[in-house]
């Protein structure tokens, strides 16, 4: 499970051709879902017990054929024709990209226009620009030209420099990439060519450990069987080797000798499905089909193969690797959404201010209508020319309009544009700290925390729901064979084997000892049995282990050790379950030694035996089983099948041994309730006619050009029947370190944890217990139904039960756990029952969904997301979690065993589930607190400045004169006050990490939106009003009727507001680092310096004003008075609230400082007794 990279659709899905789920097709998922959601489009419910990821290899691609090509065979229009070794001909008709890649966005020429275009996509910049343009109109010129353009150009230049640098780095890596060299067949010999010069149709030779320059169809390899091993780490992050095959027809030919190769490959147009490929090759008139196992992709590395020859089919930006190269998803944080609402209020406020000013101006003009012509300071008429004309007067209405527009220009920073820039800087800083956090570094995968999306850092502090995948997320996805049931007998007393005993299952080969790399617990009884071949039991055991060793797609590799005489055998495969099974088989003496496409060699109890692989029906999520047809050494032909219990039980011939089937089923049940992953294994001997029939249809199907997959599936279904049950295996998927503790903390913090898994109900429940999600005190509600009506009934019953429980037990309501399976969800999601499910689930403290398909996972997330305001977080590691990760407010990818698809779709990626705890409780909390404070502070900071301008305007007959110089108004949000907010936004910590981790409940502050809400916004605005009035009126009244000039008073106001704003910030800083000191006091000093510099310019009217006014004592008295007078109310309220209504954070902070918590409260950690009744 958790592995299928493909989302299965039913027939109607073929309407959407080429639909594949991969890293960047998130959009299509949702759109797709809505399209097909009406019916039961999700055919695939329980995702395979097989646990194998076979979907990853051939069959996946094949699956995609179902709806990409099988119904729509490659026709001339949709196909790309590649003439092998004839690039000219190949390229002549089609527009085929060369192999040079360009990830850089700009060239030197296009940089300016394109970059500007991209920057102006943001609304904020447009606002800036419009204001600047308005200001350029002569009637409206409020600021000097330079001053008005400065902020915009500053921001544009900074962003452009950042973009240019990033682009330069991309160009540089492109150049390195493009100039790597490869061997290309030219005129019958291989020549070195640069990667960028390779074109489609050319034959390229790649040596071992080299990376592939483009997507190529494999023609031949150094192995006679035509096999090549590739590593796809760069493509999907999977480090195990995958096998690719050259077709025998091409493998045989020596291309260097052939004069003229007239082969033609007809393949799909470039697409981004890395697991699918559909083509055929015409060799000398013979059609041979090609599939995903015949293509090797750019970005992969050739391993364990000396060389490989391939013909380039997709190059450059058309390679699947490049097509999959998509950026991080863009989401907008909750806080930012809220902030935009507040910004809307601020805009209304701004418009109100402007309206007031223009209205008053209109009244003033009316009142003084008769006096305007002569009034010394108005002089409507221009008498200097012969004719007396109006001078800059356009009529009453126009004047009002102009004043309105001018006031918008003057009060523009009421909308805190700089806030967007500050927020981005702060997020970068926060991301820096998250990435660098040692406690979120995963040693085992050597991976740091990754911030892929920079926009939603603060959402991490408000999570209410966590949706978690199970396999690979809660568990390690490292499978361990635990027990087996063979022939109806349970062998589950395995114990670890010491090194001495290990020798028993090592294998002597050419004076060398081969030994499996991994140790497996061995059941002694079974071990003895496996050696006795003759008993009835022994034969069954033998067959069972042969099936384990053979029925898979594992490739054995030998690895050198320090001891030259001992070699380790390592099983490389795509499914950890299969690996575990093969290691288990090896431990019992059935060691897989060699695998080619034609045969396998298994060392059975020291005896090397060769099995011919006559056919392999790979795993697909429809059948949920795989089978292999082996020609055994004893000349019999047998089909071995392994698969999920549900799918296997339907094909087992129960009549043979009903008791055994029954007892096996009982074992299966007990295994899965222990949390083990179970598989059933069976075989059947084929008689000659059966085999012949199968062989002919198999060959027909596998070379079919149309509907190959469907045909193969049909063939498989025909052969996989009347299977003789051999036994069952139980594989343990260990819980990751720290998972129970992490879940416990999350739940203590009031976060609802939901587990969505493809596993069976029993497995899911047992994992629920072992991860402490479920406890014995909970009442479980289980819903697994197969029809809509029964679903409705169960839901209603459950709701009644809920009500009863909540009314029955007073006080300590017993907790409810809801367990629901995918089959029921099919009938519930997207129907009217959804509402009931929501009501029910919101009453339950734990929800476990088992056997859910990827799209259902997204549907469950949507169920909560659409109905509540609560923040959702989805965490998963596999491709099947992608849709859920993209749907949730915050998506987290675990960079684990299962490739990188989840990571690519996620907003954040990390190595272990337990990192969720520091991520949410520490970083999320900090991010949220910091960002909320910064937003409120920025609102205040800009509004207080605007209001001071506004009050002054009331004393200038409403004509928008500013006492504060243009330059100071512009520099105010750029230099005077910008740095401290960013520094505080990045560094301030309300509580230490230790406290936050110790008391998960502190996380509730973010969930309850305590640091940013409408109330706080209003309080802030009231405070702003008071502070602006204080800062304005103190100088106004102190200087009323004196001979003070505009510039001096303006300087006083500038300095007063900057000092006030900085001390306001200083009052709220909880942790003073030297950086904070430097930023706050430094910027205050910088303001003084700037004001001085501005006042030394003799061309400005305010020349020397600062020095004059600063030499009077009244100036300093005013400054002190303003600062104290403005901040006293805030200080009083703050003291009062902190003392009388302390919130949790405040109490914890005091405790942190005075150390009471540690001493007095070491007993059960102050845990919530409601959530965790004592279990003893």
């Amino acid at each position, binding site marked *: 499970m958790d592995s299928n990279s493909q989302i299965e659709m039913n027939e109607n899905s073929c309407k959407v051709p080429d639909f594949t789920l991969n890293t960047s097709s998130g959009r299509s998922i949702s759109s797709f879902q809505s399209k097909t959601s009406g019916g039961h489009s999700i055919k695939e419910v329980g995702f395979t017990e097989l646990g194998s990821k076979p979907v990853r290899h051939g069959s996946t691609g094949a699956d995609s054929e179902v709806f990409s090509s099988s119904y729509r065979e490659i026709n001339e229009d949709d196909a790309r024709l590649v003439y092998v070794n004839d690039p000219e001909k190949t390229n002549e008709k089609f527009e085929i990209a060369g192999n040079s890649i360009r990830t850089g966005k700009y060239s030197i020429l296009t940089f300016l226009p394109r970059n500007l275009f991209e920057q102006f996509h943001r609304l904020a910049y447009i606002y800036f620009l419009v204001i600047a343009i308005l200001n350029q109109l002569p009637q409206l010129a409020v600021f000097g030209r330079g001053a008005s353009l400065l902020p915009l150009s500053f921001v544009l230049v900074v962003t452009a420099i950042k973009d240019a640098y990033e682009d330069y780095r991309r160009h540089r890596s492109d150049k390195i990439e493009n100039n790597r060299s490869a061997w290309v067949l030219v005129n019958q010999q291989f020549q070195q060519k640069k990667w960028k010069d390779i074109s489609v149709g050319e034959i390229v030779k790649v040596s071992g450990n080299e990376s592939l320059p483009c997507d190529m169809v494999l023609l031949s390899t150094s192995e006679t069987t035509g096999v090549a091993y590739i590593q796809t780490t760069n493509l999907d992050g999977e480090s195990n080797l995958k096998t690719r095959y050259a077709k025998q027809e091409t493998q045989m030919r020596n291309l260097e000798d052939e004069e003229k190769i007239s082969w033609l490959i007809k393949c799909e147009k470039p697409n981004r499905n890395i697991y699918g490929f559909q083509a055929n090759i015409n060799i000398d008139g013979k059609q041979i089909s090609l599939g995903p196992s015949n293509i090797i992709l750019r970005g992969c590395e050739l391993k364990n193969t000396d060389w490989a020859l391939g013909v380039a089919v997709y190059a450059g930006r058309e390679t699947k690797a490049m097509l999959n190269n998509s950026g991080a998803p863009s989401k907008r944080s909750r806080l930012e959404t809220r902030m935009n609402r507040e910004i809307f209020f601020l805009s209304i406020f701004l418009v109100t201010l402007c309206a007031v000013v223009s209205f008053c101006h209109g009244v003033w003009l009316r009142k003084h209508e008769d*006096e305007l012509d*002569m*009034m*010394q*300071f*108005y*002089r409507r008429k221009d008498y*200097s020319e012969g004719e007396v004309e109006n*001078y800059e007067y356009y009529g009453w209405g126009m004047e009002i309009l102009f004043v309105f527009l001018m006031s918008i220009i003057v009060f523009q920073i009421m909308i805190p544009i700089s806030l967007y820039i500050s927020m981005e800087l702060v997020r970068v800083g926060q991301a820096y700290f998250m990435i660098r956090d040692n406690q979120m570094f995963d*040693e085992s995968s*050597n991976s740091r925390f990754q911030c892929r999306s920079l926009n939603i850092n603060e959402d991490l502090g408000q999570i209410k729901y966590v949706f978690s995948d199970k396999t690979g997320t809660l568990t*390690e996805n490292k499978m361990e064979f635990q027990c087996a049931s063979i022939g109806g007998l349970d062998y589950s007393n395995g114990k670890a084997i010491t090194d001495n005993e290990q020798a028993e299952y090592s294998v002597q080969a050419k004076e060398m000892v081969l030994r499996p790399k*991994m140790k497996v617990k061995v059941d002694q009884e079974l071990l003895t049995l496996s050696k006795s071949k003759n008993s009835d039991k022994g034969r069954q055991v033998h067959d069972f282990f042969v099936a384990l060793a053979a029925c898979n797609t594992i490739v054995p590799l030998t690895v050198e050790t320090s001891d030259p005489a001992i070699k380790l055998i390592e099983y490389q495969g795509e499914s950890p379950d299969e690996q575990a099974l093969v*290691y288990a088989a090896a431990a019992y003496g059935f060691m897989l030694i060699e695998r080619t496409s034609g045969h396998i060699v298994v060392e059975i109890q020291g005896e090397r035996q060769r099995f011919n692989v006559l056919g392999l029906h790979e795993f697909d999520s429809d059948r949920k089983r795989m089978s292999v047809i082996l020609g055994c050494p004893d000349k019999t032909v047998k089909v071995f099948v392994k698969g999920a219990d549900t799918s296997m039980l339907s094909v087992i011939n129960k009549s043979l041994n009903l008791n055994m089937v029954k007892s096996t089923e009982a074992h299966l049940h007990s295994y899965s309730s222990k949390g083990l992953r179970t598989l059933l294994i069976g075989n059947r001997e084929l008689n000659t006619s059966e085999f012949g029939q199968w062989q002919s249809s198999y060959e027909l199907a596998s070379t079919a050009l149309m509907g190959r997959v469907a045909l193969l599936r049909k063939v498989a279904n025909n052969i996989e029947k009347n299977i003789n049950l051999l036994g069952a295996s139980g594989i343990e998927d260990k819980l990751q*370190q*720290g998972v129970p503790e992490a879940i416990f903390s999350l739940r203590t913090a009031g976060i609802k944890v939901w587990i969505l898994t493809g596993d069976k109900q029993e497995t899911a429940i047992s994992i629920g217990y072992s991860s402490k999600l479920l406890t014995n005190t909970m009442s479980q509600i289980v819903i697994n139904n197969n029809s809509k009506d029964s679903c409705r009934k169960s839901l209603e019953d459950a709701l009644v039960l809920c009500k009863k429980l909540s009314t029955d037990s007073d006080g300590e309501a017993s907790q409810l756990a809801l367990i629901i399976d995918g089959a029921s969800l099919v009938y519930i999601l997207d129907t009217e029952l959804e509402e009931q499910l929501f009501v029910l689930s919101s009453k339950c403290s734990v929800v476990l969904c088992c056997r859910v398909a990827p799209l259902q996972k997204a549907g469950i997330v949507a169920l909560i997301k659409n109905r509540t305001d609560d923040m959702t977080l989805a965490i998963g590691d596999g491709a099947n979690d992608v849709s859920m990760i993209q749907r949730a407010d915050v998506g987290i990818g675990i960079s684990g065993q299962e490739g990188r698809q989840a990571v690519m779709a996620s907003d954040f990626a990390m190595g272990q589930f337990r990192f969720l*705890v520091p991520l949410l409780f520490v970083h999320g909390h900090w991010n949220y607190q910091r960002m909320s404070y910064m937003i409120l502070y920025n609102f205040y900071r800009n509004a207080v400045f605007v209001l001071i301008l506004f009050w002054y305007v009331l004393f*200038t007959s409403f*004509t*928008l*004169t500013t006492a504060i110089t243009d330059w100071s108004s512009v520099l105010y949000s750029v230099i005077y006050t910008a740095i401290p907010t960013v520094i505080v936004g990045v*560094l301030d910590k309300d509580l230490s990490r230790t406290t936050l*981790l*110790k*008391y998960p409940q502190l996380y509730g502050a973010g969930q309850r939106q305590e640091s940013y809400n409408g109330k706080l916004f209003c309080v802030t605005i009231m405070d702003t009003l008071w502070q602006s009035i204080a800062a304005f009126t*103190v100088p*106004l009244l102190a200087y*009323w*009727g*004196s*001979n003070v*000039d*505009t*510039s001096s008073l303006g300087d006083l106001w500038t300095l007063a507001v900057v000092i006030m704003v900085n001390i306001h910030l200083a009052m709220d800083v909880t942790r003073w680092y*030297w950086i904070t000191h430097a930023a706050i006091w430094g910027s205050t000093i910088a303001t003084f310096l700037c004001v001085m510099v501005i006042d030394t310019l*003799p061309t*400005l*009217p305010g020349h*020397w004003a600062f020095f004059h006014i600063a030499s009077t004592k*009244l100036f300093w*008295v*005013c400054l002190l*008075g303003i600062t104290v007078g403005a901040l*006293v109310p805030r200080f009083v309220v*703050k*003291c009062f609230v902190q*003392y*009388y209504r302390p919130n*949790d954070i405040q*109490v*914890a*902070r*005091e*405790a*942190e*400082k005075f*150390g*009471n*918590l540690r001493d007095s409260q070491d007993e059960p950690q*102050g845990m919530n007794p409601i959530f965790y009744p004592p279990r003893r």
Partner: protein
Amino acid sequence: MNSNTPSSSAGGPGSADATAPRRNSKRPKYSRFTQQELPACKPILTPKWVISTFLLVSFIFIPIGIVSLFASRDVVEIVHGYETECIPSGSRNDKVGFIQSDQDKTCIRTLTVPKDMSQPIYVYYQLDNFYQNHRRYVRSRSDQQLRSPENARETGSCSPEDTVGDTAIVPCGLIAWSLFNDTYHFTSNNGGQIPINKRGISWQSDRERKFGRNVYPSNFQNGTLIGGARLNESIPLSEQEDLIVWMRTAALPTFRKLYGKIEVNLRQGDVINVTLQNNYNTYSFNGRKKLVLSTTSWLGGKNDFVGIAYLTVGGLCFFLAIVFVLIYLIKPRQLGDPSYLSWNRNPGGH
């Protein structure tokens, strides 16, 4: 919680990888900065701090308030409005007509000194309702032109008083054009002149750097409409101190401008006769004109506001200090007491 334990690869299958030499661990380098563990000061508003802050503020503010109030009270100020009185009673119905006419506008007023005034006594004229900060007005000047004769033609911002015909007005613009032109002469009751020193009434920085030593007025007040005073064209702008003072535009619609200084002491009860020329037209917009004689203190002119404000804030803070002392005594709360944590509080009694 668990996060303090170093992450390690779990045992069992796969641990074999861990033994492989780790080529380049990406483990972030430890530093106190990146782990956000820099040493920091964590101030908390304890009762002690809060009360001392309030007390400190009140101990600073109350003395300053008292001193300011005394300083303001010490200032002796004579304010005399004359805009109506100086219009002959016959013309009071048409003040604008009178002021625009060529009649003699000499007007004699008498002032009585209420208290001893020690020199220097500043002579101001005060205008009310005159918006020297009006946007049209403040922009109508050319600072370039004032500084150097080469820039005489830089009159772009000066309209409607930029040029007469084709020649530039120096100094151009509405501000200069509307230069205040009432004049005052003081004689004491016994007939002796009280000299007014009009030197050094403007800012030194303005004289030295803003108004050119070699820029002479030209074309000034040659238009159809005379706004105010004329300038002596033989005196450079840097010495036209009335102009310099006038061109430092006032911040507020009620303002004073320095006219000169009286450098003799005046005794209480002295009667001063003021001979003034009531030339300036404030009648067209109902502006008022006042003559002000004032001494100064360390805080400037007569203004009780600062003193009162400081006393208020200081008193309030003292009061708040007492309130907080009472609060802490009556309803003490142990800081950091975990029973105040929301999840420890009784769910019922919030």
